[in-house]
Protein backbone atom coordinates (compact mmCIF):
# COMPACT_ATOMS: atom_id res chain seq x y z
CA UNK A 1 0.00 0.00 0.00
CA UNK A 2 1.25 3.53 -0.77
CA UNK A 3 -0.43 6.40 1.09
CA UNK A 4 -4.20 6.23 0.71
CA UNK A 5 -3.93 4.01 -2.37
CA UNK A 6 -4.48 0.27 -2.41
CA UNK A 7 -4.34 -2.13 -5.29
CA UNK A 8 -6.93 -4.90 -5.26
CA UNK A 9 -4.18 -7.50 -4.75
CA UNK A 10 -2.74 -5.60 -1.77
CA UNK A 11 -6.15 -5.05 -0.23
CA UNK A 12 -7.11 -8.67 -0.80
CA UNK A 13 -4.00 -9.94 1.00
CA UNK A 14 -4.54 -7.52 3.88
CA UNK A 15 -8.20 -8.50 4.13
CA UNK A 16 -7.31 -12.20 4.16
CA UNK A 17 -4.79 -11.69 6.95
CA UNK A 18 -7.23 -9.36 8.70
CA UNK A 19 -4.66 -6.54 8.74
CA UNK A 20 -7.42 -4.34 7.36
CA UNK A 21 -11.19 -4.71 7.47
CA UNK A 22 -13.69 -4.09 4.66
CA UNK A 23 -15.16 -1.36 6.85
CA UNK A 24 -11.84 0.52 6.93
CA UNK A 25 -11.38 0.17 3.17
CA UNK A 26 -14.89 1.38 2.42
CA UNK A 27 -14.53 4.32 4.80
CA UNK A 28 -11.18 5.28 3.22
CA UNK A 29 -12.76 5.31 -0.24
CA UNK A 30 -15.90 7.15 0.88
CA UNK A 31 -13.81 9.87 2.58
CA UNK A 32 -11.76 10.32 -0.57
CA UNK A 33 -14.93 10.50 -2.65
CA UNK A 34 -16.30 13.16 -0.31
CA UNK A 35 -13.14 15.26 -0.46
CA UNK A 36 -12.03 14.76 -4.08
CA UNK A 37 -15.10 14.05 -6.17
CA UNK A 38 -16.43 17.61 -6.06
CA UNK A 39 -13.44 18.26 -8.37
CA UNK A 40 -13.24 14.98 -10.27
CA UNK A 41 -16.96 14.21 -10.78
CA UNK A 42 -16.21 10.52 -11.23
CA UNK A 43 -19.40 9.35 -9.47
CA UNK A 44 -22.96 10.12 -10.54
CA UNK A 45 -24.34 8.29 -7.49
CA UNK A 46 -22.74 7.05 -4.29
CA UNK A 47 -24.22 4.34 -2.08
CA UNK A 48 -22.62 4.98 1.33
CA UNK A 49 -25.28 3.28 3.49
CA UNK A 50 -25.49 0.21 1.27
CA UNK A 51 -21.68 0.00 1.08
CA UNK A 52 -21.27 0.32 4.86
CA UNK A 53 -23.83 -2.43 5.45
CA UNK A 54 -22.10 -4.69 2.95
CA UNK A 55 -18.70 -3.94 4.51
CA UNK A 56 -19.92 -4.91 7.99
CA UNK A 57 -21.39 -8.12 6.63
CA UNK A 58 -18.14 -8.91 4.78
CA UNK A 59 -16.14 -8.18 7.91
CA UNK A 60 -18.23 -10.68 9.88
CA UNK A 61 -18.01 -13.31 7.13
CA UNK A 62 -14.23 -13.02 6.81
CA UNK A 63 -13.82 -13.10 10.61
CA UNK A 64 -16.04 -16.17 10.69
CA UNK A 65 -13.85 -18.02 8.20
CA UNK A 66 -16.30 -17.62 5.33
CA UNK A 67 -14.10 -15.60 2.95
CA UNK A 68 -15.48 -15.88 -0.57
CA UNK A 69 -12.26 -15.14 -2.46
CA UNK A 70 -9.91 -12.33 -3.46
CA UNK A 71 -12.62 -9.73 -4.06
CA UNK A 72 -14.41 -10.26 -0.75
CA UNK A 73 -14.56 -6.88 0.98
CA UNK A 74 -12.95 -4.97 -1.91
CA UNK A 75 -14.65 -1.63 -2.75
CA UNK A 76 -15.50 -1.28 -6.44
CA UNK A 77 -17.77 0.88 -8.61
CA UNK A 78 -19.60 0.49 -11.92
CA UNK A 79 -19.99 2.61 -15.02
CA UNK A 80 -23.55 3.87 -14.97
CA UNK A 81 -24.65 1.68 -17.85
CA UNK A 82 -24.44 -1.47 -15.69
CA UNK A 83 -27.88 -2.20 -14.27
CA UNK A 84 -28.15 -2.42 -10.51
CA UNK A 85 -31.34 -3.73 -8.92
CA UNK A 86 -33.15 -0.96 -7.06
CA UNK A 87 -30.38 1.55 -7.83
CA UNK A 88 -30.83 4.26 -10.48
CA UNK A 89 -28.95 3.54 -13.71
CA UNK A 90 -28.98 6.49 -16.07
CA UNK A 91 -26.40 6.03 -18.83
CA UNK A 92 -25.45 9.60 -17.80
CA UNK A 93 -28.45 10.75 -19.81
CA UNK A 94 -31.62 12.71 -19.22
CA UNK A 95 -33.36 9.98 -21.25
CA UNK A 96 -32.90 7.42 -18.44
CA UNK A 97 -32.73 9.79 -15.48
CA UNK A 98 -35.48 7.99 -13.55
CA UNK A 99 -34.61 4.46 -14.59
CA UNK A 100 -34.40 2.08 -11.62
CA UNK A 101 -33.73 -1.47 -12.84
CA UNK A 102 -35.51 -4.41 -11.27
CA UNK A 103 -32.52 -6.73 -11.69
CA UNK A 104 -28.75 -6.65 -11.67
CA UNK A 105 -26.67 -7.02 -14.81
CA UNK A 106 -25.02 -10.46 -14.86
CA UNK A 107 -21.66 -8.83 -14.14
CA UNK A 108 -23.08 -6.75 -11.27
CA UNK A 109 -24.44 -9.96 -9.74
CA UNK A 110 -21.19 -11.89 -10.24
CA UNK A 111 -19.15 -9.18 -8.52
CA UNK A 112 -21.60 -9.14 -5.58
CA UNK A 113 -21.42 -12.93 -5.33
CA UNK A 114 -17.62 -12.64 -5.24
CA UNK A 115 -18.01 -10.33 -2.23
CA UNK A 116 -17.01 -7.04 -3.87
CA UNK A 117 -18.63 -3.99 -2.30
CA UNK A 118 -20.39 -1.54 -4.61
CA UNK A 119 -19.58 2.08 -3.70
CA UNK A 120 -21.66 3.68 -6.43
CA UNK A 121 -22.26 4.38 -10.09
CA UNK A 122 -19.74 6.15 -12.27
CA UNK A 123 -19.83 8.87 -14.88
CA UNK A 124 -19.78 7.87 -18.53
CA UNK A 125 -20.14 9.64 -21.80
CA UNK A 126 -23.84 9.65 -22.62
CA UNK A 127 -24.90 6.05 -23.39
CA UNK A 128 -21.18 5.27 -23.79
CA UNK A 129 -20.94 7.36 -26.95
CA UNK A 130 -21.25 11.08 -26.32
CA UNK A 131 -18.24 13.13 -25.32
CA UNK A 132 -17.33 15.10 -22.21
CA UNK A 133 -20.57 17.09 -22.29
CA UNK A 134 -21.71 20.01 -20.16
CA UNK A 135 -25.41 19.79 -21.10
CA UNK A 136 -26.18 16.50 -19.34
CA UNK A 137 -27.66 15.87 -15.88
CA UNK A 138 -24.16 15.31 -14.44
CA UNK A 139 -20.86 17.05 -15.19
CA UNK A 140 -18.10 15.22 -17.09
CA UNK A 141 -15.44 13.39 -15.07
CA UNK A 142 -12.03 15.07 -14.76
CA UNK A 143 -8.59 13.55 -15.06
CA UNK A 144 -6.97 13.06 -11.62
CA UNK A 145 -3.51 13.73 -13.09
CA UNK A 146 -4.70 17.20 -14.05
CA UNK A 147 -8.39 18.07 -13.61
CA UNK A 148 -8.23 20.54 -16.50
CA UNK A 149 -7.70 17.55 -18.78
CA UNK A 150 -9.91 14.90 -20.33
CA UNK A 151 -10.18 11.43 -18.79
CA UNK A 152 -10.72 9.68 -22.09
CA UNK A 153 -13.96 7.90 -22.63
CA UNK A 154 -16.45 6.66 -22.60
CA UNK A 155 -15.70 4.93 -19.26
CA UNK A 156 -14.62 8.31 -17.94
CA UNK A 157 -15.66 7.96 -14.29
CA UNK A 158 -14.24 4.42 -14.18
CA UNK A 159 -10.83 5.77 -15.17
CA UNK A 160 -10.89 8.77 -12.84
CA UNK A 161 -12.15 6.81 -9.81
CA UNK A 162 -9.40 4.16 -9.91
CA UNK A 163 -6.61 6.66 -10.63
CA UNK A 164 -7.70 8.83 -7.69
CA UNK A 165 -8.20 5.93 -5.28
CA UNK A 166 -11.96 6.45 -5.12
CA UNK A 167 -12.51 2.75 -5.88
CA UNK A 168 -10.01 -0.08 -6.14
CA UNK A 169 -11.45 -1.43 -9.35
CA UNK A 170 -14.23 -0.65 -11.79
CA UNK A 171 -15.98 -2.10 -14.79
CA UNK A 172 -16.08 -0.18 -18.04
CA UNK A 173 -17.43 -1.01 -21.47
CA UNK A 174 -15.58 -0.88 -24.77
CA UNK A 175 -17.22 -0.52 -28.20
CA UNK A 176 -14.47 1.42 -29.98
CA UNK A 177 -11.93 1.85 -27.18
CA UNK A 178 -13.95 3.01 -24.19
CA UNK A 179 -12.04 0.90 -21.64
CA UNK A 180 -8.57 1.34 -23.14
CA UNK A 181 -8.73 5.09 -23.85
CA UNK A 182 -9.58 6.20 -20.28
CA UNK A 183 -7.17 3.58 -18.95
CA UNK A 184 -4.40 5.13 -21.06
CA UNK A 185 -5.29 8.73 -20.18
CA UNK A 186 -5.73 7.99 -16.46
CA UNK A 187 -2.68 5.71 -16.14
CA UNK A 188 -4.47 2.40 -15.44
CA UNK A 189 -4.56 -1.14 -16.70
CA UNK A 190 -7.78 -1.73 -18.64
CA UNK A 191 -8.81 -4.90 -20.42
CA UNK A 192 -11.25 -5.31 -23.27
CA UNK A 193 -11.76 -9.07 -23.18
CA UNK A 194 -12.51 -11.23 -26.23
CA UNK A 195 -15.95 -10.81 -27.73
CA UNK A 196 -18.10 -13.38 -25.94
CA UNK A 197 -15.88 -13.73 -22.85
CA UNK A 198 -17.91 -11.53 -20.48
CA UNK A 199 -21.69 -11.27 -20.39
CA UNK A 200 -23.29 -8.05 -21.60
CA UNK A 201 -26.71 -8.88 -20.15
CA UNK A 202 -28.09 -5.91 -18.22
CA UNK A 203 -25.61 -3.42 -19.65
CA UNK A 204 -27.10 -0.67 -21.85
CA UNK A 205 -26.05 -1.62 -25.39
CA UNK A 206 -24.36 0.77 -27.77
CA UNK A 207 -23.55 -1.60 -30.63
CA UNK A 208 -24.52 -5.26 -30.33
CA UNK A 209 -21.65 -6.70 -32.33
CA UNK A 210 -18.92 -4.41 -30.97
CA UNK A 211 -19.77 -4.03 -27.26
CA UNK A 212 -17.50 -5.61 -24.65
CA UNK A 213 -17.56 -5.41 -20.84
CA UNK A 214 -14.32 -5.50 -18.91
CA UNK A 215 -12.23 -4.47 -15.91
CA UNK A 216 -10.26 -1.31 -15.19
CA UNK A 217 -7.82 -1.22 -12.27
CA UNK A 218 -4.38 0.00 -11.24
CA UNK A 219 -2.52 -3.12 -12.38
CA UNK A 220 -2.86 -6.03 -14.78
CA UNK A 221 -2.92 -8.33 -11.75
CA UNK A 222 -5.97 -6.45 -10.43
CA UNK A 223 -7.63 -6.79 -13.84
CA UNK A 224 -6.98 -10.54 -13.64
CA UNK A 225 -8.75 -10.72 -10.28
CA UNK A 226 -11.75 -8.79 -11.58
CA UNK A 227 -11.92 -10.75 -14.84
CA UNK A 228 -11.90 -14.01 -12.90
CA UNK A 229 -15.15 -13.01 -11.23
CA UNK A 230 -17.00 -11.90 -14.36
CA UNK A 231 -15.74 -14.16 -17.18
CA UNK A 232 -17.73 -17.11 -18.43
CA UNK A 233 -20.75 -18.07 -20.49
CA UNK A 234 -24.18 -16.58 -19.95
CA UNK A 235 -27.06 -18.31 -21.71
CA UNK A 236 -28.98 -15.00 -21.78
CA UNK A 237 -26.28 -13.30 -23.89
CA UNK A 238 -26.54 -14.47 -27.53
CA UNK A 239 -22.88 -13.57 -28.16
CA UNK A 240 -21.60 -15.40 -25.09
CA UNK A 241 -19.01 -18.10 -25.79
CA UNK A 242 -18.78 -21.55 -24.26
CA UNK A 243 -15.06 -21.33 -23.62
CA UNK A 244 -13.41 -22.54 -20.39
CA UNK A 245 -12.20 -19.80 -18.03
CA UNK A 246 -8.60 -20.33 -16.88
CA UNK A 247 -7.08 -19.23 -13.57
CA UNK A 248 -5.89 -15.78 -14.60
CA UNK A 249 -3.85 -14.98 -11.47
CA UNK A 250 -2.06 -18.34 -11.75
CA UNK A 251 -0.87 -17.37 -15.24
CA UNK A 252 0.97 -14.29 -13.93
CA UNK A 253 4.65 -14.17 -13.02
CA UNK A 254 7.87 -15.05 -14.73
CA UNK A 255 9.45 -13.49 -17.78
CA UNK A 256 8.40 -13.38 -21.43
CA UNK A 257 10.81 -15.93 -22.92
CA UNK A 258 9.28 -17.74 -25.87
CA UNK A 259 6.70 -15.06 -26.58
CA UNK A 260 6.59 -13.26 -29.90
CA UNK A 261 5.52 -9.60 -30.02
CA UNK A 262 4.39 -8.18 -33.36
CA UNK A 263 4.54 -4.41 -33.82
CA UNK A 264 2.25 -3.00 -36.55
CA UNK A 265 4.42 0.08 -37.17
CA UNK A 266 2.26 1.18 -40.10
CA UNK A 267 -0.63 1.78 -37.69
CA UNK A 268 1.12 4.71 -36.07
CA UNK A 269 4.49 5.65 -37.62
CA UNK A 270 4.33 8.54 -40.02
CA UNK A 271 1.10 9.70 -38.42
CA UNK A 272 1.58 13.41 -37.84
CA UNK A 273 -0.75 13.19 -34.86
CA UNK A 274 1.57 10.80 -33.00
CA UNK A 275 2.92 12.78 -30.08
CA UNK A 276 6.75 12.50 -29.77
CA UNK A 277 6.57 11.73 -26.05
CA UNK A 278 4.06 8.94 -26.75
CA UNK A 279 6.26 7.60 -29.56
CA UNK A 280 9.32 7.55 -27.29
CA UNK A 281 7.48 5.92 -24.37
CA UNK A 282 5.95 3.20 -26.55
CA UNK A 283 9.30 2.48 -28.24
CA UNK A 284 10.91 2.15 -24.79
CA UNK A 285 8.09 -0.12 -23.63
CA UNK A 286 8.52 -2.42 -26.64
CA UNK A 287 12.27 -2.52 -25.94
CA UNK A 288 11.42 -3.50 -22.36
CA UNK A 289 9.33 -6.41 -23.63
CA UNK A 290 12.40 -7.54 -25.58
CA UNK A 291 14.54 -7.23 -22.45
CA UNK A 292 12.03 -9.44 -20.64
CA UNK A 293 12.68 -12.19 -23.18
CA UNK A 294 10.13 -11.64 -25.92
CA UNK A 295 11.06 -11.75 -29.59
CA UNK A 296 9.95 -8.50 -31.24
CA UNK A 297 9.19 -8.28 -34.98
CA UNK A 298 7.39 -5.96 -37.34
CA UNK A 299 3.97 -7.17 -38.46
CA UNK A 300 1.78 -6.04 -41.34
CA UNK A 301 -1.94 -5.64 -40.83
CA UNK A 302 -4.57 -4.08 -43.10
CA UNK A 303 -4.67 -0.25 -42.99
CA UNK A 304 -5.92 1.21 -39.72
CA UNK A 305 -8.44 3.26 -41.71
CA UNK A 306 -10.10 0.03 -42.92
CA UNK A 307 -10.64 -1.15 -39.35
CA UNK A 308 -11.92 2.29 -38.43
CA UNK A 309 -14.29 2.50 -41.39
CA UNK A 310 -15.84 -0.88 -40.55
CA UNK A 311 -16.09 0.02 -36.86
CA UNK A 312 -17.60 3.46 -37.43
CA UNK A 313 -20.29 2.32 -39.87
CA UNK A 314 -21.27 -0.76 -37.83
CA UNK A 315 -21.22 1.14 -34.54
CA UNK A 316 -23.32 4.03 -35.78
CA UNK A 317 -25.82 1.82 -37.62
CA UNK A 318 -26.35 -0.43 -34.61
CA UNK A 319 -26.46 2.48 -32.15
CA UNK A 320 -28.97 4.31 -34.32
CA UNK A 321 -31.17 1.21 -34.44
CA UNK A 322 -31.18 1.19 -30.64
CA UNK A 323 -31.92 4.89 -30.21
CA UNK A 324 -33.96 5.65 -33.34
CA UNK A 325 -37.39 5.59 -31.77
CA UNK A 326 -36.41 7.68 -28.75
CA UNK A 327 -34.38 10.06 -30.91
CA UNK A 328 -37.43 10.76 -33.05
CA UNK A 329 -39.58 11.49 -30.00
CA UNK A 330 -37.10 13.16 -27.66
CA UNK A 331 -34.03 14.27 -29.61
CA UNK A 332 -33.80 17.47 -27.55
CA UNK A 333 -33.30 15.38 -24.38
CA UNK A 334 -30.03 13.92 -25.66
CA UNK A 335 -26.83 15.93 -25.22
CA UNK A 336 -25.51 17.88 -28.17
CA UNK A 337 -22.38 15.73 -28.64
CA UNK A 338 -24.39 12.49 -28.68
CA UNK A 339 -26.82 13.97 -31.22
CA UNK A 340 -24.02 15.24 -33.45
CA UNK A 341 -22.35 11.83 -33.48
CA UNK A 342 -25.38 9.58 -33.91
CA UNK A 343 -27.74 11.49 -36.20
CA UNK A 344 -25.60 11.05 -39.35
CA UNK A 345 -26.36 7.32 -39.01
CA UNK A 346 -29.88 8.12 -40.20
CA UNK A 347 -28.31 8.59 -43.62
CA UNK A 348 -26.46 5.27 -43.79
CA UNK A 349 -27.93 2.74 -46.17
CA UNK A 350 -28.58 -0.92 -45.53
CA UNK A 351 -25.89 -1.68 -48.12
CA UNK A 352 -23.38 0.48 -46.19
CA UNK A 353 -23.95 -1.64 -43.10
CA UNK A 354 -23.65 -4.94 -44.96
CA UNK A 355 -20.49 -3.85 -46.80
CA UNK A 356 -18.97 -2.87 -43.46
CA UNK A 357 -19.67 -6.34 -42.06
CA UNK A 358 -18.17 -7.92 -45.19
CA UNK A 359 -15.06 -5.78 -44.78
CA UNK A 360 -15.07 -6.78 -41.13
CA UNK A 361 -14.81 -10.45 -41.99
CA UNK A 362 -11.68 -9.91 -44.06
CA UNK A 363 -10.16 -7.85 -41.23
CA UNK A 364 -10.92 -10.61 -38.71
CA UNK A 365 -9.15 -13.15 -40.91
CA UNK A 366 -6.11 -10.88 -41.39
CA UNK A 367 -5.87 -10.20 -37.64
CA UNK A 368 -6.15 -13.90 -36.81
CA UNK A 369 -3.30 -14.62 -39.26
CA UNK A 370 -1.07 -12.00 -37.62
CA UNK A 371 -1.83 -13.51 -34.23
CA UNK A 372 -1.06 -17.01 -35.50
CA UNK A 373 2.51 -15.78 -35.99
CA UNK A 374 2.74 -13.61 -32.86
CA UNK A 375 1.58 -14.12 -29.29
CA UNK A 376 0.64 -10.48 -28.88
CA UNK A 377 0.68 -7.26 -30.89
CA UNK A 378 1.99 -4.05 -29.29
CA UNK A 379 1.29 -0.45 -30.27
CA UNK A 380 0.15 2.81 -28.65
CA UNK A 381 -3.28 2.91 -26.99
CA UNK A 382 -3.79 6.47 -28.19
CA UNK A 383 -1.66 8.84 -30.27
CA UNK A 384 -1.45 11.69 -27.76
CA UNK A 385 -1.79 12.34 -24.03
CA UNK A 386 -5.12 13.59 -22.67
CA UNK A 387 -6.06 17.00 -24.14
CA UNK A 388 -7.62 19.76 -22.10
CA UNK A 389 -11.29 18.93 -21.67
CA UNK A 390 -12.53 21.88 -23.72
CA UNK A 391 -10.27 20.87 -26.61
CA UNK A 392 -11.81 17.40 -27.13
CA UNK A 393 -13.17 17.32 -30.69
CA UNK A 394 -16.95 17.03 -30.70
CA UNK A 395 -17.03 14.48 -33.49
CA UNK A 396 -14.00 12.49 -32.25
CA UNK A 397 -14.04 9.07 -33.95
CA UNK A 398 -15.81 10.52 -37.00
CA UNK A 399 -12.85 12.82 -37.61
CA UNK A 400 -9.88 10.45 -37.39
CA UNK A 401 -9.03 6.77 -36.99
CA UNK A 402 -8.44 5.43 -33.51
CA UNK A 403 -5.83 2.81 -32.58
CA UNK A 404 -8.36 1.05 -30.38
CA UNK A 405 -10.94 0.09 -33.01
CA UNK A 406 -9.10 -2.93 -34.55
CA UNK A 407 -9.73 -5.10 -31.47
CA UNK A 408 -13.43 -4.20 -31.45
CA UNK A 409 -13.80 -5.08 -35.11
CA UNK A 410 -11.91 -8.37 -34.77
CA UNK A 411 -13.12 -9.33 -31.29
CA UNK A 412 -9.61 -10.07 -30.01
CA UNK A 413 -8.74 -9.14 -26.42
CA UNK A 414 -6.72 -5.96 -25.86
CA UNK A 415 -5.11 -4.50 -22.75
CA UNK A 416 -3.87 -0.96 -22.14
CA UNK A 417 -1.09 -0.56 -19.56
CA UNK A 418 0.65 2.58 -18.37
CA UNK A 419 4.06 2.95 -20.05
CA UNK A 420 5.18 6.30 -18.66
CA UNK A 421 4.27 9.93 -18.28
CA UNK A 422 4.78 13.09 -20.29
CA UNK A 423 6.94 15.93 -18.98
CA UNK A 424 3.66 17.55 -17.92
CA UNK A 425 2.83 14.47 -15.85
CA UNK A 426 0.10 12.94 -18.02
CA UNK A 427 0.03 9.13 -18.43
CA UNK A 428 0.83 7.29 -21.66
CA UNK A 429 -0.68 3.94 -22.65
CA UNK A 430 0.78 0.87 -24.37
CA UNK A 431 -1.78 -1.38 -26.04
CA UNK A 432 -1.33 -5.14 -26.16
CA UNK A 433 -3.64 -7.20 -28.35
CA UNK A 434 -3.79 -10.97 -27.95
CA UNK A 435 -5.18 -14.18 -29.35
CA UNK A 436 -8.88 -14.86 -29.10
CA UNK A 437 -9.80 -15.95 -25.55
CA UNK A 438 -6.16 -15.76 -24.44
CA UNK A 439 -6.59 -12.93 -21.96
CA UNK A 440 -4.27 -14.88 -19.62
CA UNK A 441 -1.22 -14.25 -21.83
CA UNK A 442 -2.09 -10.59 -22.29
CA UNK A 443 -2.36 -10.14 -18.52
CA UNK A 444 0.91 -12.02 -18.04
CA UNK A 445 2.68 -9.65 -20.46
CA UNK A 446 1.09 -6.59 -18.82
CA UNK A 447 2.00 -7.81 -15.34
CA UNK A 448 5.61 -8.60 -16.32
CA UNK A 449 5.96 -5.16 -17.88
CA UNK A 450 4.48 -3.41 -14.83
CA UNK A 451 6.79 -5.28 -12.44
CA UNK A 452 9.84 -4.38 -14.54
CA UNK A 453 9.08 -0.65 -14.76
CA UNK A 454 8.54 2.11 -12.16
CA UNK A 455 5.24 3.46 -13.48
CA UNK A 456 2.98 1.71 -10.90
CA UNK A 457 4.79 3.50 -8.06
CA UNK A 458 3.52 6.91 -9.09
CA UNK A 459 0.05 8.24 -8.23
CA UNK A 460 -1.71 11.55 -8.91
CA UNK A 461 -0.90 14.34 -6.46
CA UNK A 462 -4.33 15.10 -5.09
Amino acid at each position, binding site marked *: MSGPYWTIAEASAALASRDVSPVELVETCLKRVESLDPILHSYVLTLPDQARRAAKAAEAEIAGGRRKGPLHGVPIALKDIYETAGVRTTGHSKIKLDHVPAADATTTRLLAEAGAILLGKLATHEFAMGGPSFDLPFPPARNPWNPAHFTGGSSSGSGAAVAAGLALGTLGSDTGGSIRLPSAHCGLAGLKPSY*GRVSRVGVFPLSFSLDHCGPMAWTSRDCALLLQAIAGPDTRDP*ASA*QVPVPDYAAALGGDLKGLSVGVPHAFFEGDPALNPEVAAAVAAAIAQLRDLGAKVEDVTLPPLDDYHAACT*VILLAEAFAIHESTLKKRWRDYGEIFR*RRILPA*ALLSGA*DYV*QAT*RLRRSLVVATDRALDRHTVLAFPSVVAPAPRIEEVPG*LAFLERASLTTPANVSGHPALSVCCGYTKAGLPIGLQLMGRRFDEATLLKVGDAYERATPWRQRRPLL
Partner: protein
Amino acid sequence: MAASPERISREMFALMIARAFPDLPENEREALWRAWGHLERWTARLPRELPYEAEPAHIFAAPERRP
Protein backbone atom coordinates in the same frame (compact mmCIF):
# COMPACT_ATOMS: atom_id res chain seq x y z
CA MET B 1 -27.01 23.31 -66.76
CA ALA B 2 -26.53 20.17 -64.65
CA ALA B 3 -26.46 20.60 -60.88
CA SER B 4 -23.07 20.11 -59.19
CA PRO B 5 -22.44 16.87 -57.26
CA GLU B 6 -22.20 18.97 -54.09
CA ARG B 7 -25.63 20.46 -54.71
CA ILE B 8 -27.16 17.08 -55.51
CA SER B 9 -25.67 15.65 -52.33
CA ARG B 10 -26.99 18.53 -50.31
CA GLU B 11 -30.49 18.17 -51.77
CA MET B 12 -30.50 14.43 -51.13
CA PHE B 13 -29.34 15.08 -47.59
CA ALA B 14 -32.15 17.62 -47.07
CA LEU B 15 -34.75 15.15 -48.31
CA MET B 16 -33.49 12.30 -46.16
CA ILE B 17 -33.33 14.44 -43.03
CA ALA B 18 -36.78 15.87 -43.69
CA ARG B 19 -38.04 12.28 -43.79
CA ALA B 20 -36.14 11.03 -40.72
CA PHE B 21 -36.31 14.13 -38.49
CA PRO B 22 -38.88 16.57 -39.87
CA ASP B 23 -38.73 18.92 -36.88
CA LEU B 24 -34.95 19.33 -36.75
CA PRO B 25 -34.09 23.05 -36.64
CA GLU B 26 -31.82 24.65 -39.23
CA ASN B 27 -28.77 24.94 -36.96
CA GLU B 28 -29.00 21.21 -36.13
CA ARG B 29 -29.27 20.39 -39.84
CA GLU B 30 -26.12 22.39 -40.55
CA ALA B 31 -24.21 20.56 -37.81
CA LEU B 32 -25.52 17.26 -39.10
CA TRP B 33 -24.42 18.10 -42.64
CA ARG B 34 -20.88 18.65 -41.38
CA ALA B 35 -20.93 15.40 -39.37
CA TRP B 36 -22.27 13.53 -42.40
CA GLY B 37 -19.31 14.84 -44.41
CA HIS B 38 -16.99 13.06 -41.98
CA LEU B 39 -19.04 9.86 -42.01
CA GLU B 40 -19.06 9.84 -45.82
CA ARG B 41 -15.26 9.63 -45.73
CA TRP B 42 -15.58 6.32 -43.89
CA THR B 43 -18.39 4.92 -46.02
CA ALA B 44 -16.26 5.74 -49.08
CA ARG B 45 -13.64 3.27 -47.80
CA LEU B 46 -16.10 0.38 -47.78
CA PRO B 47 -15.58 -2.17 -50.57
CA ARG B 48 -18.43 -2.07 -53.09
CA GLU B 49 -17.45 -4.78 -55.56
CA LEU B 50 -16.67 -7.81 -53.47
CA PRO B 51 -17.30 -11.27 -54.92
CA TYR B 52 -20.48 -12.86 -53.68
CA GLU B 53 -18.42 -15.39 -51.69
CA ALA B 54 -17.32 -12.55 -49.42
CA GLU B 55 -20.01 -13.00 -46.82
CA PRO B 56 -20.42 -10.70 -43.85
CA ALA B 57 -18.92 -11.43 -40.48
CA HIS B 58 -21.55 -13.11 -38.34
CA ILE B 59 -21.72 -12.82 -34.60
CA PHE B 60 -22.54 -16.50 -34.32
CA ALA B 61 -20.03 -17.78 -36.88
CA ALA B 62 -17.32 -18.81 -34.42
CA PRO B 63 -17.48 -22.48 -33.41
CA GLU B 64 -17.51 -21.61 -29.74
CA ARG B 65 -20.76 -19.66 -30.07
CA ARG B 66 -23.89 -21.36 -28.81
CA PRO B 67 -26.76 -19.08 -29.77
